[in-house]
């Protein structure tokens, strides 16, 4: 390792950890300067997390959030050049620190998904008429082999809580958190509508089919998952309705070639 690399690794280690001894030749003045850099580092990252996870902060309270954010930036120092990614893994940190309140992790995961959808690549959704025109001549084999492209930034968050109500209740600083458990786990589907990230809650079976297609699976494979979950009769009924919902939501970007 070169002398410069060694100096930089050492300084970074001392920014991340308070307890390391000072390098040879450093004085109290150096220590005071180092403390400013340490404070700048933590402040910038905590503020970045506050900006990304503002509803999570409102849910757990400012002080609890600050402790969790500080823990996260010490335990998981950022690796990317963009501060936008400083919150990567923060939902997992919430799962660890708020283990008795799973709604915290779920809300943080939803905020992270919304945050990532915001600057996603632009794409126009395929409308129902366009889809109908493209598939007008489809035979059974075409439907089974159908591959779909979804809007960039689309993602899924599994939840046991009514994230719609929780999200809405935390829209302002004054809001009281509306934490309600769902009868059955669901899936938040997140995407960007125009310039605005949005989400809806959908049954887990729909989320499973959507995930399979988004990962490159065929419509036939997604339908097989529905059969496993719902049985053949309900799967047939729901497959078409599900596709129609996705077109109405505007999350399908096109039919993959």
């Amino acid at each position, binding site marked *: 390792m070169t*002398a410069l690399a060694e100096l930089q690794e050492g300084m970074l280690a001392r920014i991340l950890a308070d307890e390391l001894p000072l390098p040879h030749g450093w004085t109290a003045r150096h220590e005071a300067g180092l403390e400013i850099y340490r404070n700048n*580092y933590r402040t910038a990252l905590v503020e970045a997390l506050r900006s990304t996870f503002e509803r999570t902060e409102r849910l757990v309270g400012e002080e609890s959030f600050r402790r969790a954010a500080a823990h996260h930036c010490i335990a998981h120092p950022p690796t990317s050049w963009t501060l936008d990614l400083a919150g990567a893994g923060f939902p997992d940190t919430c799962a660890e620190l708020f283990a008795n309140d799973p709604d915290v992790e779920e809300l943080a995961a939803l905020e992270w998904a919304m945050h990532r959808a915001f600057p996603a690549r*632009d794409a126009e959704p395929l409308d129902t008429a366009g889809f109908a025109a493209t598939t007008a001549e489809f035979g059974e084999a075409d439907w089974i082999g159908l591959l779909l492209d979804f809007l960039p930034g689309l993602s899924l968050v599994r939840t046991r809580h009514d994230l719609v109500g929780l999200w809405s209740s935390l829209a302002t600083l004054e809001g009281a958190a509306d934490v309600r458990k769902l009868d059955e786990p669901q899936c938040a589907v997140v995407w960007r509508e125009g310039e605005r990230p949005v989400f809806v809650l959908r049954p887990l079976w729909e989320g499973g089919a959507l995930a399979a297609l988004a990962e490159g699976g065929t419509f036939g494979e997604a339908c097989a998952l529905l059969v496993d979950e719902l049985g053949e009769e309900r799967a047939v009924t729901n497959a078409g309705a599900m596709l129609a919902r996705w077109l109405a939501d505007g999350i399908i970007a096109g039919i993959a070639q």
Partner: protein
Amino acid sequence: MTDIAPFAGFGLGLRRRHYADFLEGTVPVDFVEVISENYMVDGGKPLRLLEEARARHPVILHGVSMSIGSAHGLDADYLARLKALADRIEPLWMSDHLCWTRSSAHNTHDLLPLPLTAEALDVVCDNIERAQDALGRPMLFENPSSYLTFPEDEMAEWEFIAAMAQRTGCYLLLDVNNVYVSAHNHGFSAHDYLDGLPLDRVRQIHLAGHQPGDIIVDTHDRAVSDGVWALYAEAMRRLGPVATMIERDDKIPPLPNLLDELARARDFATQTWEAVAA
């Protein structure tokens, strides 16, 4: 590599609080400066807003994450994204800081000081050459504010910067507040600093506020101090026409307050240039 022609404009940083002013009204600035990384994204609202701003004003791309002093070299993905943004926006110029921000594994998102050694100078020059080659244009590099110096230092900061500019052909962004802050923190003369810089390479000046104290901190959260205005006047007496920007990143006031500060800079500069010309 093309030259960067002097541009005697006066501008402000484009910050979220003032988006509507800049995009819907007429703001009397000659350029706006944006933080490059905020727009090095795939799509969505940030790029749309920047393109709208670009349609109204020349834009300067000012980066904070190139890490030109990193012993581990530059990030290829970062350079590719920055080039794509530059090709899209066609900025007046692009700048970053003489500092390092990342190690082999982690990024601090803070502008950390370099030891002023021959080894660090070699690393910085190699990295600048790589960046300028990748971007296909020369860059400006900003003198940092710093809160510690290293026992390993072998030269003054202005000597380091002069050698850097001479070896790489890069231009300079002279942050007058940073000179003031570091001169106080490390006990050197700000006038010696200006004397030692190759001022013909300066294309832009930054003015900002700082937090006073035993160690002054470069906070960008308040108005420019009287001491910095005095140093700005001194710098303008020595410089030809260059661009000047008021930098404000925290506790951002209403736009008219910043325009008042910018008008003060414009008056200072104009009077100085007229006096020098006479």
